[in-house]
C-alpha cells in the first residue's frame, strides 16, 4: 500500500476532493447535494488518505477522540437547533416562525435552520464513514 505514485497522487488530490465536499455541504440548499452527499465526499477523501498512508497515520491526523466528539456533537447540535424553536414559543425544529434569519435568496447564507443543519449533518456523515472504515480495517 505504500507505493510512491499512489502517495504523491493522493497528496495532490485529497485537498481538492475535500474542498469540493465542503462546497457541496455549504451549497446544500442552493444546488443538488447537501448534508449527506457532501459528508460522503469528505468521508471518501479521508478513506482514500487511509488507503494510501495506512491507518495509524490517519489516526494521527483524525484521532478517534475527535471523531467521537463530532458524532456526539452532531446530534446535540441538531437538538439545540430544534430547541431554539421551543425557546421562541413555536414548536420543535421550526425555522421561519422561530425567527431564523433567512438571508437573501440565492446567497450562501440563506435558509436559516437549513444551512446550519446541513453543515451538522455533513460533518456527522463524514466522521461516521471514517470511524466505520477504521473499525473494520483495524479488525483484521
Amino acid at each position, binding site marked *: 500500500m505504500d507505493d510512491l505514485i499512489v502517495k504523491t497522487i493522493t497528496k495532490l488530490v485529497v485537498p481538492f476532493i475535500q474542498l469540493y465536499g465542503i462546497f457541496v455541504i455549504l451549497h446544500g440548499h442552493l*444546488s*443538488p447535494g*447537501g448534508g*449527506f452527499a457532501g459528508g460522503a465526499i469528505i468521508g471518501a477523501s479521508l478513506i482514500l488518505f487511509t488507503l494510501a498512508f495506512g491507518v495509524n497515520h490517519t489516526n494521527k491526523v483524525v484521532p478517534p477522540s475527535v471523531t467521537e466528539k463530532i458524532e456526539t456533537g452532531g446530534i446535540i447540535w441538531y437538538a439545540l437547533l430544534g430547541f431554539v424553536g421551543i425557546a421562541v414559543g413555536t414548536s420543535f425544529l421550526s425555522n421561519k416562525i422561530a425567527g431564523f434569519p433567512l438571508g437573501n435568496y*440565492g446567497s450562501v447564507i440563506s435558509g436559516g435552520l437549513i444551512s446550519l443543519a446541513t453543515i451538522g449533518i455533513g460533518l456527522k*456523515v463524514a466522521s461516521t464513514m471514517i470511524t*466505520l472504515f477504521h*473499525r*473494520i480495517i483495524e*479488525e*483484521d
Partner: protein
Amino acid sequence: MANLDMILDNINYIGAFTLFIIGLYTVLTHSNLLKRVIGVNIMETAVFLFFVSIGYIKGASAPILDQITGESFYVNPLPSAMILTGIVVAVSITAYGLSLLINLYKEYGTLELDEIISKEEKAND
C-alpha cells in the same frame, strides 16, 4: 395480456418488483452469509427505485428552483427527499451486518452456512 407499451411506459415499477424478488430469492436460498447481505441490499435498492419512481413525472425537471424564476415544471420532491433517509438506513444496516460477519468469520473460519452448521454439530457432540 401485457401489451408492449404497458411494459414500456411503467418499466420502473416492473424493474423494481423484479429486483425485489431477486433480492428476496438471494436472501432466502443462498448458503453464503455475505451473499445474504448483498441480497438485502438488492431489496433495499428495489424499494428505493419504486419509491422514487412514484414521484417521477415525464418531462419534468429536478426540483431545484433556478435563479431566473422561469415557471418550469417540477418532479414531486417528497419521495426523493424520503429516499435520502432510506439510503442512510441501508448503509448502516449493511455496515452492521458486515461487522457481524467479520466476527463470525473469525470464530468459524468460513461464511458458508452449511459448514458453520456442521462445525456446530461437531462442536457440541
